[in-house]
C-alpha cells in the first residue's frame, strides 16, 4: 500500500487539502493520509456515496461519478475510483475548488492504475 499512501500524500499537499482517504463500498478505509477519525469518515463516505449512487441510478438512470460538498469550512470532494472504491478529499478552508478538482482528477487516474 506504499504507493497508495504516497499518492494520497502528494494529492493532499498539491491540492492544499487536509486529508484524503480511499474507502471501500462497505465503508472500510483502504488507505488514508492526514485523516483524524478515519473509521467514521470511511462509513460516512460510503453511506453518502451509496445514497448519491442510488439517486443517480433512480432519478437519472446513470452511475455516480463524483460528488462535491461545500461546507462553511471548505469542500469535500468524492470521486469514484473503481470496483466500488472511492476517494474522499477533504480540503482546508480557503482551498480553491478548481485546484482541488484538478489534482483530484489527476491522482484519481494514478490510484486507478495502482488498484
Amino acid at each position: 500500500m506504499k504507493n497508495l499512501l504516497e499518492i494520497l500524500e502528494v494529492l493532499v499537499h498539491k491540492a492544499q487539502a487536509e486529508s484524503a482517504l480511499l474507502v471501500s463500498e462497505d465503508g472500510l478505509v483502504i488507505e488514508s493520509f492526514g485523516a483524524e477519525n478515519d473509521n467514521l469518515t470511511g462509513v460516512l463516505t460510503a453511506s453518502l456515496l451509496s445514497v448519491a449512487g442510488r439517486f443517480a441510478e433512480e432519478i437519472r438512470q446513470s452511475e455516480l461519478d463524483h460528488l462535491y460538498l461545500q461546507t462553511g469550512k471548505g469542500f469535500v470532494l468524492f470521486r469514484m475510483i473503481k470496483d466500488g472504491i472511492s476517494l474522499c478529499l477533504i480540503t482546508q478552508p480557503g482551498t480553491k475548488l478548481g485546484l482541488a478538482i484538478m489534482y483530484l482528477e489527476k491522482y484519481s487516474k494514478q490510484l486507478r492504475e495502482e488498484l
Partner: protein
Amino acid sequence: MLKTITKNIMDHLPENLHLTEEEIASLKGNTDFFLAIAEGLIKSFYDTLYSNEFARSIFKEGERPVREASFKDWVVKTLSGNFDNDYWYWQAYVGILHIKRQVPNHLMIFMMGMVNDYVLREARKRIKPEELDTFSSAWIKLTMIVLALIAESYHYFYLQAITNVTGIKTQLLDNMVKTDVDKLLKENAKYRL
C-alpha cells in the same frame, strides 16, 4: 428472500429446541382444547391490547372483529398444518406485516407472553396431568420459534427496506453500527455490571 431468512433463522435453532414428533402430536391431539379456549383467549388478548393507549392506536376504528377473526384463523391453521417450511415462511411473513402496521417487536413479545400465560393456565386445568409436560414444552417451543421468526424478519426486512431505498448495503450498515456501538456502550457505562 423470505425463504432464505426463514432458513437462516431455523438453522440457528438448537436441535433440542425443534418440535419433536411427540410434541407435534400433542399439539394436534389437543385441537379441541384450543378450540374450547380460543374465544376466551382472543377476547383476553384484544382486551389486553386495547387497554394500552399506544397499542390501541395501531388499530383503525372497527378493526377489532377483523383482527379477532385473523387470530382464530392462525390457531386453526397452526393446528391443522404440519409445522413445515411453508408454515415457518408464513410466520416470517407476519414480521413484514408488522412493519407495515408499525407493530414494534416489544409489543409483540409482551403479547406472546400473555398468550403463553393464558394457554398454559388453561392447559393445567383442562389437559390430563400425564400429557401436560409434553404439551407445555410443545407450546413453548412453538411460540418461541414463531416469536423468533416474526422478530427477526421484522428486523431484517426493516433494514432491507433501508438498503433498497438508500443503496446502503448490509455490510456498510454493519460497519456503521460497529463504528458507533463503542460510543453507545461508553455513554451507557453506568449500567454495566
